[in-house]
């Protein structure tokens, strides 16, 4: 008993049940899905081979990546501006901005998605107004296409982009910027050479967060895409519920998991991930 206790810290006994629960409820299903992807409908790598053989699968993966990249670029750029404004305005205004940000953060994705239909749909507020004013003769197709999906996703993702950036900017020592100006750098030089590099961990954290969340988007593309923008998450749901091709669904799920892990691994080559995530939780 003593020999065991010497090697294993007794603290483990306290977290052992929790650890077992996580392994059973988290790792178990994931392994089950991986298993399904190589055993259904028949054992082998047939499901993975489909990625090479089927143009449609590749196209869906490509659509997903394209939309996620564009969403991430816009969300992080806009988020950076918002975070920058929040850090540099008065406390009162900052509180207002934070409240607005959090309100939109907390509103259900369904509500936010359908609101866009009401605003930008064919008979939506914007199109109706423009038509009444005589500025356009036919409604502009904002929604039910890829543009609609991007608008909806960027809008949903902005709070996720802002929060890590905000934390990262707030923790900067403003005297560094003062020193830069004092040594003769212009405002924009200070921004590009001092401020931006110092907030890089925040940018990486918010990019990762937004990109990974975008990969699994389901509701927004399904509603705002008008059926023409098929992303991986919706395709997985169809394979599970409509066509019953569970092997294909499991393969795509495993692929997404591997993609996310690979992305984290690549990032970890370039910078300390603990700094990225530490930066976002501090």
């Amino acid at each position: 008993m003593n020999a065991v206790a010497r090697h294993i810290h007794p603290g483990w006994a306290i977290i052992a049940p929790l650890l077992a629960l996580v392994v059973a409820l988290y790792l178990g299903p994931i392994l089950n899905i991986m298993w399904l992807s190589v055993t259904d409908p028949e054992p082998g790598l047939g499901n993975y081979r489909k990625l090479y053989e089927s143009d449609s699968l590749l196209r869906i993966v490509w659509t997903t990546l394209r939309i996620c990249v564009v969403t991430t670029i816009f969300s992080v750029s806009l988020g950076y501006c918002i975070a920058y404004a929040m850090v540099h305005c008065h406390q009162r205004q900052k509180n207002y901005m934070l409240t607005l940000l959090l309100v939109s953060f907390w509103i259900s994705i369904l509500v936010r998605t359908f609101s866009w239909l009401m605003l930008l749909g064919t008979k939506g507020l914007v199109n109706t107004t423009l038509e009444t004013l005589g500025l356009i003769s036919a409604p502009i197709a904002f929604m039910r296409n890829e543009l609609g999906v991007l608008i909806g996703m960027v809008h949903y993702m902005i709070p996720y982009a802002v929060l890590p950036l905000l934390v990262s900017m707030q923790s900067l020592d403003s005297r560094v910027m003062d020193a830069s100006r004092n040594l003769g750098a212009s405002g924009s030089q200070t921004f590009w050479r001092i401020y931006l590099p110092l907030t890089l961990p925040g940018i990486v954290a918010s990019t990762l967060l937004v990109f990974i969340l975008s990969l699994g988007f389901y509701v927004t593309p399904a509603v705002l895409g008008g059926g023409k923008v098929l992303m991986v998450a919706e395709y997985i749901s169809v394979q599970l519920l409509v066509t019953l091709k569970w092997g294909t669904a499991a393969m795509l799920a495993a692929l997404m998991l591997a993609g996310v892990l690979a992305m984290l691994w690549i990032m970890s080559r370039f910078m300390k991930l603990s700094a990225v995530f530490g930066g976002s939780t501090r």
Partner: protein
Amino acid sequence: MRRRPVRRRGAWPSGHLEAIDYDIVSKDRTLPQYALEHGVSIILYGYAFVYDTEAYGDNPPNSWADFFDTAKFPGKRSLYKWANGALEGALLADGVAKDALYPLDMDRALAKIKSIKDDSLYWGSGAEAHSMVVNGEVSLGMVWQNRGRNIENDTDGRYKLVMNEALAMPGAYIVPKGNPAGREAVMKFIATAQEVSAQLTLLDCLGMTPSNPEAFAQIPEDQQPYAITSAMNIDGIVYNDPTWWGENGGDAVNAFLEAIS
């Protein structure tokens, strides 16, 4: 390359279902083609379309050929996202005879679907189909026929249902093996659901059309235009083949998704 037989989850011999007991359930109280070994149709629903009377009031569309004719009927149209019904409509529009639809000629159907892709939106739920019409997003909307009445009411008659060439779908009961109520009780329940009074109540509540031929003549006057098997509509409808869909549905849906996305 060696090809191994592919096990299909969609096809029936998976061993999960009880055979329908046609000693208790009546074969005569449903349409003959929908009294299958492991499932029996107790209602019919279907795919039909609504059109905007303000856009096409003088010369309204009356067939799937009209629905797919973007030159004669310009404007957006909506179709079901998961292929069912949309493929049949496309083939009918392309000139395939009603009784020669199955097995579906996928290439021909998808070519027709693609020909109106730029003018099409696709819905995944009845509510979505409904709102696309009511919000004025489409001028021609494929819908589940039992929503036709609500759509006409919600738009004050601006949109009108066309039941010619409506695609009749069997709403069927299947019985899982080892279900909690037991085999007998479920079969008796199905027999009850086949009775004319039950069938008419379902029509009244949900707009689901009777599949029991005894009930056809008793469909009330105000439901006649919306019911698939009413005297008014029954000659124009086209029957879905659930056996084909059971065997080919998965591949058909994926091919359809590839065509529209």
